[in-house]
């Protein structure tokens, strides 16, 4: 069995177990919540709904109270068939449809801003580590650390107000302009970029510092190792040493960090979405939680977790190309 296939399958095995753990947790949490959705729906209509009507409604939700085990079994079977049940708040929409739309936007926003932050952050990290204790190395880390210290949503609010509302440079919300119709046409794609710019900017700005610092630290420790001195002695030009010898080795720990950080980045994205009323999972989750919409809540939490697991697995495969030690 060639070593790299072995590595990929072992990582896949782990993510399978993690996904199973997430599913079980996802099943248990809503079940423990006080109150039940049917009475909440009734209350929402402030008395216009008679009590007898509620029981009829309970059946239509499938909120039977047969033993937990059978509920768990049907829950798992449903997931395998991709049927996540029907949302209560958006009845009778199936959960998978509501989530489908939202998930793409969240992944797009969180994913793109994270990749950008990672690229800029690591390049900056390489540069300031290369001339460490120089001028740049003394200003940049504290400055970016200061920006990183702000809470996501606070910065998002300020940025929205300054650049969106008062200076009118950027739109103040949503994922694309109203006058554009979705499809693979350039005005739509341009409008999507135009609308995603501010939210992505805040996300990138806040997480940039973290990437830069971690890359700087790994870079500094790598520059101390023998093969750098040996390369230097070999007369290899310093720019080549910086990239081919130092950076390629220093980036490996950051790559594993990249997978892990996706979870945090997603949380940040959820908050930013609410400020920019970006149609991602953020607002949907909060609404689902407040209206006790079990199926929708389970669906959102699970899709986010599976997305994160999937992304982590992809990062592991990417590491395969970067680090020959995993390959063979």
């Amino acid at each position, binding site marked *: 069995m060639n070593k790299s296939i072995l590595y990929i399958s072992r990582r896949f095995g782990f993510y399978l177990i993690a996904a199973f753990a997430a599913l079980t947790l996802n099943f248990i949490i809503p079940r423990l919540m006080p109150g039940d959705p049917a009475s909440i729906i009734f209350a929402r209509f402030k008395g216009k709904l008679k009590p007898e009507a509620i029981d009829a409604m309970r059946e239509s939700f499938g909120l039977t109270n047969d033993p937990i085990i059978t509920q768990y079994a049907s829950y798992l079977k449903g997931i395998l068939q991709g049927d996540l049940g029907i949302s209560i708040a958006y009845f009778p929409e199936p959960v998978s449809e509501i989530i489908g739309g939202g998930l793409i936007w969240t992944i797009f926003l969180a994913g793109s801003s994270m990749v950008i932050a990672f690229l800029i952050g690591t390049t900056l990290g390489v540069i300031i580590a290369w001339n460490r204790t120089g001028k740049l190395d003394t200003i940049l880390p504290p400055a970016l650390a200061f920006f990183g210290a702000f809470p996501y949503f606070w910065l998002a609010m300020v940025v929205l107000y300054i650049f969106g509302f008062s200076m009118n440079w950027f739109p103040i919300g949503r994922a694309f302009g109203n006058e554009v119709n979705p499809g693979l046409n350039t005005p739509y794609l341009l409008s999507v970029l135009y609308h995603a710019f501010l939210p992505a900017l805040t996300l990138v700005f806040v997480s940039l510092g973290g990437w830069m610092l971690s890359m700087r630290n790994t870079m500094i420790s790598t520059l101390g190792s023998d093969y750098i001195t*040996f390369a230097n*002695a070999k007369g290899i030009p310093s720019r080549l040493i910086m990239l081919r010898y130092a950076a*390629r080795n220093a980036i490996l720990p950051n790559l594993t960090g990249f997978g892990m950080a996706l979870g945090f980045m997603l949380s940040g994205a959820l908050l930013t979405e609410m400020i920019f009323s970006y149609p991602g999972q953020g607002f949907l989750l909060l609404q689902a939680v407040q209206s006790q919409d079990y199926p929708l809540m389970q669906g959102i939490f699970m899709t986010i977790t599976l997305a994160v697991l999937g992304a982590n697995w992809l990062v592991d495969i990417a590491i395969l190309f970067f680090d020959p030690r995993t390959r063979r």
Partner: protein
Amino acid sequence: MNNPIISVNNLSVEYVTGIKSVQAVHNVSFEINSGEIFGLVGESGSGKSTVVQAMMRILPPPALISKGNVFINNEDIMAASEADIINFRWKKISIVMQSALNALNPVLSVREQIHDVLKIHKGLIGIEADNRAKELLSLVDIEYNRLDSFPHQLSGGMKQRIVIAIALAIMPPIIIMDEPTTALDVIVEREIISKVIELRKKLDFTILFITHDLNLLLEFADRLAIMKDGEVVELDEVKNIQKGGKHPYTKKLIGSIPSASGVRQKGLLTKPDKLTFPKDPILEVKDLEKVFQSSNIFNKQKLVAVNGVSFKIFKGEIIGLVGESGSGKSTIAKLVTRLMRPSAGSIYLNGKNKKVTESRNVPLEYRKTVQMVFQDPFGSLNSIHTVYHHLARPLFRHKLKDQTEMFPYIVHLLEKVGLTPGDKFAKKFPHEMSGGERQRVAIARALSLDPQIIVADEPTSMLDVSIRMDVLEIFAKMRKENNLTVLFITHDLASARYLADRIIVLKNGAIVEENASEKLIQSPKKEYTKQLVTAASPGWLSSLGENFEKKEEYNDQ
């Protein structure tokens, strides 16, 4: 002296630190003639590597060269501007790094790392570069299909040969070898050195060889300089140095090297007048086995570290366990001290079979009788505790001494191992002591429980040559005075010959030969033992069948 190819005068190097800068190298001057093998010897911390790296100006910050110049082919590298430095490096002078293990970039294949050098200096790319690379590898007897493998797939010896190949890539007139073989086995070390010398004859380049092992240099160097605390204390032909040289430090160095051949030097280590041992062994090991299994379920790489080893140790006896790295001697040490559980076989202490599971629930009584001294003096003491704590803790644990008697007993112990005044040393922290002092504290700790057996795993290999014999002396004295049994594990046959009564030679986890130490040295039976004996005695270079004209000048003294 004819035209010196390198001449270093008054070279001084400083390391800037928080308080004030440290003078690492002070006014070093020496000259090397073309085609010569010049040795630079000194103990760790004597500044020899700093000199060499300063000569190529590759010392990383916070080092700076405060004085001196280095003429290579009459061009001063110290005066060279950033642009000219490039044509010094690898064209005029190349270097083989100290620890070969990570001199190669782990993420680049061997081919890419060789091509880098060829492309920059010779502009060779593609097929031409490949051919040149294959030539270089064949020079150092490495099959060319190794070009595409990565550093992590190569053994220590192979990596070192590739680094040498890279150093020869542009055929520079001078090659610096900074402790090239320290991390390798004795036999592999000898092979590589003989290969280097063979290449030197064929390609006629000058070698500046740096090592802490004076014995090694005496074999093949022409002239050598001895450094101590950043200064050159002795600079002369090898044959003058052989006789003891001028400086007292040289005499001490020469004196303290035991040789594994020839007649046994008298009085080196105290030996009790008569050696009688009780009938039944204090410790007996029967067909001991240890197999390491990689944990993941997909593939079952098996590594047999110890394969059916049996031997007996009698009270008051010193046994030498000799083998190369990877021969399983350290694993045996861990098994005997119950740090690890054996896969098979059993260990009997005083006749009682201690078939015991993992080290966790080993009876305290066993712990009291078997103690261990480790190889790395820096790692074996915990830097946050004082010496007193290190010695008091085991006593307290086994409730051997109550609070009042503790301090005087510890002071007595410290002085017993040569750390006088004991009370001053008791209050010290590990970082306030030298390597030798720390190792003595480690021995004191092992002795604190008054054990019957001490397992010493390469106790002196990381120490400076000059103090090794003093440390071994402690073991010899303990055995004489309190009938201590010692299992002395080492790769150095010479020191085993002098300390141990009996020697067991180990290879790939199995015993090759076992005999009284003098008999084993004088008349080894097995081929591998013969190889070990010759590699460890002077004049080994000639015995490897090389036609090396230098040989007839030396004769055994």
